[in-house]
């Protein structure tokens, strides 16, 4: 066996090294030094991120590479999406330092980071997998440790409840997913994506359709597509904010890309006849139902849960586009979504850490007491709602443009529905802004406070992302060039 192909997995290996460093530090360092675990993890991860991004521009990284007899592949686009996730994880880590250094976390803060890194490793595998076995390993290792992360607030009852709910639904959806896989295996006789794609759609069509539906349901659980989304709100609300932001941004972004890969590589043949329509229905349901629920939420974490459900619907437009522009716009959307949502979670986390308040009514008149945090939150809301010139506008614009290139009337109608839904979403995003900025009679519940410097750093990065990505289209052009030069199949191999 040629061991050099292991080197193709350099990002995974490097991540593993980060994990081991954190693990060793946490286990063997003296008690005092353990206080710095969070900072240590962040710094090491930051170095890893920088190296990993720098690696993209190294001429040695332009070629595609495979390992394990084609079960694992990597290439420029895949490296780019992993780096996008890295940036997001880095922001999450920075934002979580204050929380992780809290008193009740003393013995366990290492575990949180170890679990987090393991799930990230699972996501890497999901993205790179071209065989369902590896994909399943990735999916599971990206799901199960998350349940532990959700349950991290030991003293809060909601945290346990959320973890149990998450675990039960995750297990159930895994079962459905594997059921679908077994059908697929029965039909194709192989679990390689490329073999499955050769499967002929004909006599066993009923089985194929059900198999496809189960696979979509299994992945749709992680993406929280309606109707597989019901766990989302309870879990987001119950989990500690750091876990919620990780769950809503990184986990969702990684799964969206993995989903794209699966649908194109394994089931690309069925796009036209079958899954285009399944996804079509799911997108409409997801965006609409997510919006309808978001309107009435009073708890901000729950509110962002529903907002992220409807955002997932928009992300899926990049999959249904089924072309290279769709790939680029999906990646760009995920990146922008990372910055916008993390800015929102950063503010919520900072306020929760300082005062413990997460209800929208508490935010009334926030601009008078904490003008900077309010401003960050406003930018995040504007970007999520897609108001120009913030990044969210362009990501929505590009993802619509990608879908419209499909050119069928059905897609036009889909984009129209999505557009109408943005108006609804505008309403509830502005509710938050209104609460913060419209003067009220009563003084604000949240006193003026100074947030920790790490929290501010996280917010600065997110806000810079919202503004810079909005003005400079360079980054999108870079992604688009990369994907269009390789084509739809080439870009994700």
């Amino acid at each position, binding site marked *: 066996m040629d061991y050099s192909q292991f080197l193709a997995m350099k990002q995974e290996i490097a991540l593993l090294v980060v994990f081991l460093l954190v693990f060793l530090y946490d286990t063997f360092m003296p008690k005092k030094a353990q206080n710095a675990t969070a900072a240590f993890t962040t710094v090491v991860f930051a170095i890893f991120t920088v190296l990993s991004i720098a690696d993209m521009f190294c001429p040695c990284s332009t070629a595609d590479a495979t390992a394990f007899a084609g079960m694992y592949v990597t290439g420029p686009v895949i490296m780019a999406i992993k780096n996008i996730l890295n940036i997001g994880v880095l922001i999450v880590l920075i934002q979580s330092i204050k929380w992780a250094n809290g008193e009740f976390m003393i013995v366990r803060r290492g575990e949180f980071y170890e679990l987090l890194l393991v799930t990230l490793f699972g996501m890497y595998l999901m993205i790179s997998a071209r065989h369902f076995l590896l994909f399943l390993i990735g999916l599971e290792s990206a799901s199960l440790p998350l349940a532990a992360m959700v349950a991290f607030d030991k003293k809060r009852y909601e945290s346990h409840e959320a973890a149990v709910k998450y675990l039960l639904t995750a297990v159930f959806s895994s079962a459905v997913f594997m059921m679908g896989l077994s059908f697929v295996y029965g039909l194709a006789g192989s679990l390689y994506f490329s073999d499955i794609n050769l499967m002929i759609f004909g006599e066993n069509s009923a089985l194929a359709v059900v198999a496809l539906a189960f696979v979509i349901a299994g992945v749709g659980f992680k993406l929280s597509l309606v109707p597989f989304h*019901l766990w989302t709100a309870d879990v987001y609300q119950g989990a500690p904010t750091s876990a919620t932001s990780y769950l809503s941004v990184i986990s969702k972004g990684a799964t969206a890309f993995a989903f794209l890969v699966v649908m194109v590589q394994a089931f690309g043949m069925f796009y036209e006849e079958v899954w285009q*329509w399944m996804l079509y*229905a799911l997108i409409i349901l997801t965006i609409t139902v997510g919006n309808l629920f978001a309107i009435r939420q009073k708890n901000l974490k729950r509110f962002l849960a529903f907002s992220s459900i409807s955002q997932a619907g928009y992300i899926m437009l990049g999959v249904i586009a089924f072309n290279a522009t769709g790939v680029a716009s999906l990646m760009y959307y995920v990146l922008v979504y990372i910055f916008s949502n993390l800015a929102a979670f950063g503010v919520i986390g900072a306020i929760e850490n300082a005062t413990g308040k997460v209800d929208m009514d508490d935010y009334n008149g926030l601009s008078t007491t904490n003008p900077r945090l309010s401003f960050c939150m406003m930018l995040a809301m504007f970007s999520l709602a897609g108001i120009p010139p913030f990044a969210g506008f362009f990501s929505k614009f590009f993802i619509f443009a990608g879908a419209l290139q499909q050119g069928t009337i059905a897609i036009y109608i889909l984009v129209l529905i999505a557009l109408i839904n943005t108006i609804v979403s505008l309403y509830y995003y502005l509710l938050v802004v209104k609460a913060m900025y419209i003067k009220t009679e009563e003084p604000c519940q949240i006193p003026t406070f100074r947030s920790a410097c790490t929290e501010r750093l996280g917010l600065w990065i997110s806000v810079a992302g919202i503004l810079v990505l909005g003005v400079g289209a360079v980054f999108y052009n870079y992604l688009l060039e990369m994907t269009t030069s390789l084509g739809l199949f080439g870009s994700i191999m």
Partner: protein
Amino acid sequence: MDATIQILILAIPLFMFLLLGLLGKYLSPKIAGILGTTAMGVVTALAYYTAFNYFFSGDPNFQREIIGEHGETVVEHLQYIVFNPVWLEFYGNLHINIGFMLDSISAMMLVVITTISFMVNLYSNAYMRDHDGVYEKGFQRYYAFLALFSFSMLGLVVATNIFQMYIFWELVGASSYLLIGFYYTSPAAVSASKKAFIVTRFADLGFLIGILVLSYYTGVFSFMDFTSAPVEGLADTYHISLDTASTVLATKFAGSAAPMFMGCSVLTWALVLIFMGGMGKSAMLPLHIWLPDAMEGPTPVSALIHAATMVVAGVYLVARLFPLYLQETTALEIVTVVGAITAFYAAMVACAQVDIKRVLAFSTISQIAFMMVSLGVCRPEYHHGVGYMASMFHLFTHAMFKALLFLGAGALIHAVHSNNYTAMHGLRKYMPVTHWTFLIGCLAIAGIIPFSGFFSKDEILTACGEYSIFVYIWMSAVAALTAFYMFRLYFLIFWWKEHKVHDPHHAPHDQPWPMTVPLIFLALVSCVAGFINFGDFVTYNGEQHTFDLDWTVAGISLTVAVVSIAVAAKMYMKENPLPDKMAAALPRLWDWCYHRFYWDELYMFITHRIIFGLICKPIAWFDRHIIDGTMDAFATVTNKASWSIKGLQSGNVQTYVWIYLIGALLLGTITYICLI
């Protein structure tokens, strides 16, 4: 080729705008003024260097030698794309670039813009403070806006594609708006700035539609795709080619046998609509109404924006797309007619104004119309396209002497604190520098040899004569009026009667050096600029050509100008009742001229009575009842739906799983049923 200098030309003013705009309040006004002026001085030096290099270095990217039609060797100026990165990419051909094109007219404009802008920056240091040396409120803001304007205008002239031009076109409009409304506490300034913005925006709507029509049918934005062909063997270098324009039209437009709309080809519509944008910016009839009011802004601003640079953007636009216009002579004829009528109208009105800045404003309108006419009558077969060269030549000389006149007017206003000549009379002994430089400006605009205006106007009249004798006579009449109203102004300001000095300690006097130096410099330029052989630099196809002065035309126009000046001298040099008698003899004409032929009143009538009353009110009703009603219905339905599905989110994990399973099964089943 290294693009650092060109990047700096755009980047320095932008940086100054950001610096003075954001941090201005922390700087003292003096520092802000010095910073702004120095930065503009640097940009001017860089622009001169660029233009000098372009015209004289002989670099193969900038010029080449070709064989002319008579077998002689001719030097041809080329178009060189210094940089042109994609700014916004949609797909395929549809992308917008922001670039820097160096060719003969953009190099010339670089010189004009930076020179005037630098002079104005310098001048404003003294102008924007009172006699005790106290700076005006918002002095830093003023310099920030000047920098923004310079950046926008430079970006406009070096645009590589029509969309970039449009972007910067709007930016100059915005900075003009900001500067006209600089004294935002004065209601007149506020309404003038609004008026300028709205009128030009309205015209730009036509421009935008024209761009969209043109690019919809041709699929490209870039000027090079419309008007030029690449030079073989050199990257990024193009030469102006009339063939490209006709090929573009033949391949792109004629696919469907030249689509027609309301009796004209779509191309004609596109070009006329684009010209409409130019009409707005260059204040052509009937979109001229904003320019006289724009004089509410500080006078140096009027010199920079509303005399020398921004208002000629319309002329520049037509010149830039000239090969395209040549394909569609209907559009050029419209340009000619609009220009000719405007020139005459504005000259008439200028004869009856009291406010000296208004006189200069109408004179600007009239002179820009000269340039428009000159482009409109230009055909390659008429004397090597003399009209195009003449138009650009006049643009150049006019920028210099009109800026001179405006800055002179600024000095006068600063001295007597009034815009009206009634407060000035007989100032020649008190302000000798201003007097002499103003006189040179007047001689230049009147077209007296050897001042610059004589040469450029003479070429324009030659071009008109080649085109049609009627246009020639018409424009000569306008030239006569020009000489008359300018010298009326001159005599009323500096002669007429002795100046009444109210307070001997505060007698009007020449201004400090930052204000007199620009006057002297521009006066010198106006004395010598006419001797430039402009055909060596700018022609319609880039090939150098020596245009000889047509002494018949020159003789006639010189005679006409001298006679007009003599008439003006007779009427206005000494206080006498003749002007009043003239006005009384033709009361109707005088009234109409004085009231600018009631254009403003006409607009008021149309907007208030017709548009507001007959269109806006019904639309408002529709908006309030139908559209708002629909929106309310949407909101109600959404809200109801939101309430009705809340049972789904029960919090019960068993239910969640049931819904999950049912969803997955339904997804498969329904899809399957639909498939068979």
